[in-house]
């Protein structure tokens, strides 16, 4: 029952090999085993979206994924957006438009929007709101977040 499992995962372009308990959630693996605390843990049942990371390029809930399932795969976390400490266009748009608010939900929103904007570089505000529906902000108000995503889309098209 408590047998350890060896896994190798590519996170943000770096390969990590670890021995884990099979019940380790990907969110806990990233935070505790790898020290990548940018991935936040909110509800732990897939509702709030703050733990969203990219798995093979697609946004998924790290809290509804076992690290064991990701063996041999590629994961990107919020830390991948600014590898040299320089904000990405998406991050910069959030900074300029007050899109962070308290900042707790931001890493998940950034990872969701990173994938959304790659697929839809010319979104309408309505499409942005729909795309944001899987990420909850409890500061109240998505207005600045929508502004941030629209500004990011414009900056990324330029």
């Amino acid at each position: 029952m408590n047998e350890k499992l060896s896994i190798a995962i590519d996170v943000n372009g770096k390969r990590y090999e670890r021995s884990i308990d099979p019940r380790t959630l990907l969110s806990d693996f990233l935070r505790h085993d790898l020290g990548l605390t940018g991935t936040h843990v909110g509800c732990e049942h897939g509702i709030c979206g703050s733990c969203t990371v990219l798995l093979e390029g697609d946004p998924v809930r790290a809290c509804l994924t076992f690290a064991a399932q990701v063996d041999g795969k590629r994961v990107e976390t919020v830390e991948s957006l600014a590898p040299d400490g320089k904000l990405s266009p998406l991050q910069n748009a959030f900074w300029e438009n007050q899109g962070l608010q308290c900042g707790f939900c931001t890493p998940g929103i950034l990872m969701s929007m990173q994938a959304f904007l790659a697929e839809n570089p010319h979104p309408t505000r309505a499409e942005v709101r729909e795309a944001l529906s899987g990420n909850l902000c409890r500061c109240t108000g998505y207005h600045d977040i929508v502004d941030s995503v629209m500004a990011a889309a414009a900056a990324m098209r330029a």
Partner: protein
Amino acid sequence: MKPAPFAYHRADNLAHAATLLAEHGDDAKLLAGGQSLIAAMNFRLARPRVLIDISNVVERNRVTEEAAGVRISAPTVQRHAERHSAVRSRLPVLAHAIEHIAHFQIRNKGTVGGSIANADPASELPAMSLLLDAELEVTSAGGSERIAAEDLFITYMTTALQPDQVLASILFRAPPAGHGWGFHEIARRAGDFAMAGAAAVLARDANGACNYARVVLFGLAPTPVRAKAAEASLSGHALSADALATAAGLVGEVVDPETDVHVTEAYRRQVAPVLALRALTDAARGAGALS
């Protein structure tokens, strides 16, 4: 909010999963996308002693067009199915319904077969399997069998699948050419579980008479249900607004809702025919009627 310990086995393919299931018996659960199972495990509402991981089997994301419709391998992620050209062209109602499942982040991992086998009465894919006369291919260490979707759902979260059986693929049958479809659900917020929903498919013959009708309700009974009385009332008749209203009025016979934290039983009884009429009206228009 952390899962209880379990033994982990990774299946290379579905036959391997069936062998592992036979070996571990009732202690084992299949882990596909895990978007319902892992949430239940985090709450410790589910504490399987053994997990057999089928999320990376070779059969994943196989969508193939057949004469009768589109076959989707059970471990196909919902987002893959939703975007597949064969699904969008031959089963537009299915693509539309999948878009209503939670959020794209969940659909990137949740599977078509997992949702059907989970048999949540409020979820979209079990309802679609009824609407599209689906046939399920099921495999076990003893061999394969085929089960009609109509025979699959027993009650809440309970199917006719045996503990040693693995759902391998689902054949969603394409309705007749020229059919129209409708799909309506009510949820408080985009992506939430539906409090109630209805879907319909209609087709007409050369004289404009209805020669194909399917009406399915979900979130309104312990399983998704077909409203056969409503279907029969339309058969052979012109798809007039009156005929559709009469049909929608007949769905109450199969509705058996409950009160929960979201809405009351009475509310669900009231919206069932309303949603059915919206779905039927869209379907009739799509089939060229009501113009």
